[in-house]
């Protein structure tokens, strides 16, 4: 049995505390009125005041009106900033735990022989789906209560003047949105609870009926998931850029979910193995996880490029705006994700021997996790804070808060059951797995 070391426990609690303090500070520091933003703008404008001295009065009037507009826009963006900073890690890390559970279901549905010694690790990480799902849902409810303006289509004033959104209100309306979110999160958690319960029951003695039940549950979950995942990605991410749409967006998000999920399994496994647990896990298991990390990284790059090249080539204004805003305001992050999520993982993990060396897999894994956080950042931030972005106290503290919660939940859940399943149809094969 694994017990969470007090060091790790206090580490995760410190992360939560630090994150919470930073986040409270950023909510307080966010401008609370348009006047504040105007003051901010004026103080920075006074630096160039000399240049405008000779400007005619009519122009000055126009400019003042424009400035007010600009200030209001900036005010909304800066008010959104701490919310969006929290929203990015909350859904990113929730979706990691969902990705781990999807991988677990894939192993069950494909009756894989190599992975059963890793099942408990996957079950432990998927346990974060409960607190993570609640956090996501709370944030979505708060958004729908107009505490922030992350989802412009929730604002009836905007919709009244926007024909494109009006045509979408049959799907994009707040009650239906919240109902769908509850369906996704509730459905995924329900499947995970049922399968983990069967897996724990199997520890008492091998039962073919339990094995078959988990096989059917995982097959059912995968069908349910692929539909809901696609809709989830439209709802939670794509609808932020309400006018824009991409038909492969669900796949693009799925690739991110899967690669970060597999990476997290590898990192947690290597950590536990380093502490002397998981006696049956050998370097062939790590090798297989690293293969998936590299494969899904390339899959992600394939979808990134597929989405980009069609929009770039067709050059249709309503589609191009999505990339135009990112090219203008986020060029470093946008192309940085390609290097972090595709070039580096591919080059580091292409060598067979490197996939079996723990510190290299860890190194590649950390690159992948950072890269995919930025990937989510670039998907969410342009539609919520626009060019007013920077990675500062709100972003870092929100990330620390959620990581702390994740570590605490996952390792706490890992200590609830033996780290290797006691019975399983393919357990022996997995124990003797070698490449």
């Amino acid at each position, binding site marked *: 049995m694994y017990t969470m070391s007090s060091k790790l426990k206090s580490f995760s609690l410190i992360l939560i505390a630090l994150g919470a303090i930073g986040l409270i500070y950023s909510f307080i520091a966010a401008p609370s009125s348009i006047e504040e933003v105007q003051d901010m703008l004026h103080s920075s404008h006074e630096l160039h005041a000399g240049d405008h001295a000779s400007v005619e009065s009519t122009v000055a009037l126009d400019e003042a009106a424009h400035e007010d507009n600009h200030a209001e826009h900036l005010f909304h963006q800066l008010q959104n900033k701490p919310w969006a900073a929290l929203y990015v890690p909350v859904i990113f890390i929730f979706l990691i735990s969902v990705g781990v559970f999807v991988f677990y279901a894939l192993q069950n549905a494909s009756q894989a022989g190599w992975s059963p010694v890793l099942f408990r690790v996957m079950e432990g990480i998927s346990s974060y789906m409960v607190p993570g799902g609640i956090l996501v849902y709370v944030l979505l409810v708060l958004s729908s209560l107009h505490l922030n303006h992350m989802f412009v289509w929730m604002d009836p004033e905007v919709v009244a003047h926007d024909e494109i959104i009006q045509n979408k209100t049959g799907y994009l309306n707040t009650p239906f949105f919240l109902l769908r979110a509850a369906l996704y999160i509730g459905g995924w958690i329900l499947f995970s609870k049922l399968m983990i319960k069967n897996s724990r029951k199997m520890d008492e003695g091998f039962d073919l009926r339990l094995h078959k039940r988990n096989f059917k549950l995982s097959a059912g979950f995968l069908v349910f998931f692929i539909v809901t995942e696609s809709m989830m990605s439209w709802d939670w991410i794509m609808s932020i850029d309400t006018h824009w749409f991409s038909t492969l967006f669900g796949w693009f998000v799925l690739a991110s979910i899967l690669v970060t999920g597999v990476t997290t399994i590898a990192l947690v496994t290597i950590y536990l193995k380093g502490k002397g647990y998981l006696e049956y896990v050998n370097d062939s298991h790590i090798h297989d996880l690293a293969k998936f990390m590299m494969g899904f990284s390339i899959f992600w790059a394939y979808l990134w*490029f597929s989405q*980009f*090249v069609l929009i*770039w*080539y*067709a*050059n249709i204004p309503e589609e191009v705006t999505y990339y135009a805003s990112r090219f203008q305001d986020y060029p470093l992050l946008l192309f940085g994700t390609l290097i972090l999520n595709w070039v580096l993982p591919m080059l580091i993990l*292409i060598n*067979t021997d490197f996939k079996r060396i723990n510190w290299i897999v860890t190194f590649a894994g950390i690159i992948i996790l950072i890269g995919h956080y930025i990937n989510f950042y670039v998907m969410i931030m342009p539609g919520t804070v626009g060019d007013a972005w920077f990675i500062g106290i709100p972003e870092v503290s929100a990330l620390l808060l959620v990581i702390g919660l994740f570590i605490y939940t996952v390792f706490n859940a890992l200590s609830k059951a033996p780290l290797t399943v006691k019975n399983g149809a393919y357990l022996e094969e997995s124990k003797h797995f070698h490449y």
Partner: protein
Amino acid sequence: MASKALHIVFTDDDILMEAVKALREKKIKINEVFCPFPVHGLDKALGIPHTRLAITSFLYGIVGLSVSIWLMNFIMIEDWPQNIGGKPSFSFIENMPSFVPIMFEMTVFFAAHLMVITFYMRSRLWPFKEAENPDVRSTDDKFVMEIIVNDDNIQDIAELVHENGASEIKLIENK
């Protein structure tokens, strides 16, 4: 040089693997094993070094990528400049996204084909080549192991493989 060889027939791949391990433990050199299908782990048990085919494949991929970059630059930009996607920039770097699918395909094409050709050359295989396996049954359901022997150790080896489940042992006099 005249030499003698033993051709030892096995009926099962698991028995073959055990015999290979037992022989290797006694430091007896196994010349060759002929199998009707690839036996998982046999190359490791025989002590054959890991294949370098994967490295050649990576290098061929880089060659393919370079060729495709040169090719697209030549045919689409230099030789007959094309208007790509309504963006007549006539610059390789600005039109690069539309060349990526070709670059990808050429990388795969070069890596795959040149790797297969390398594999044939390395295994000395070509059309109408005569089979090298000594016993036709090794193309059906039998596993044949070949060991070069001399008069001193022939009896020991024969006894050892017999103990390890050989179904047939044949002495071959090479010229």
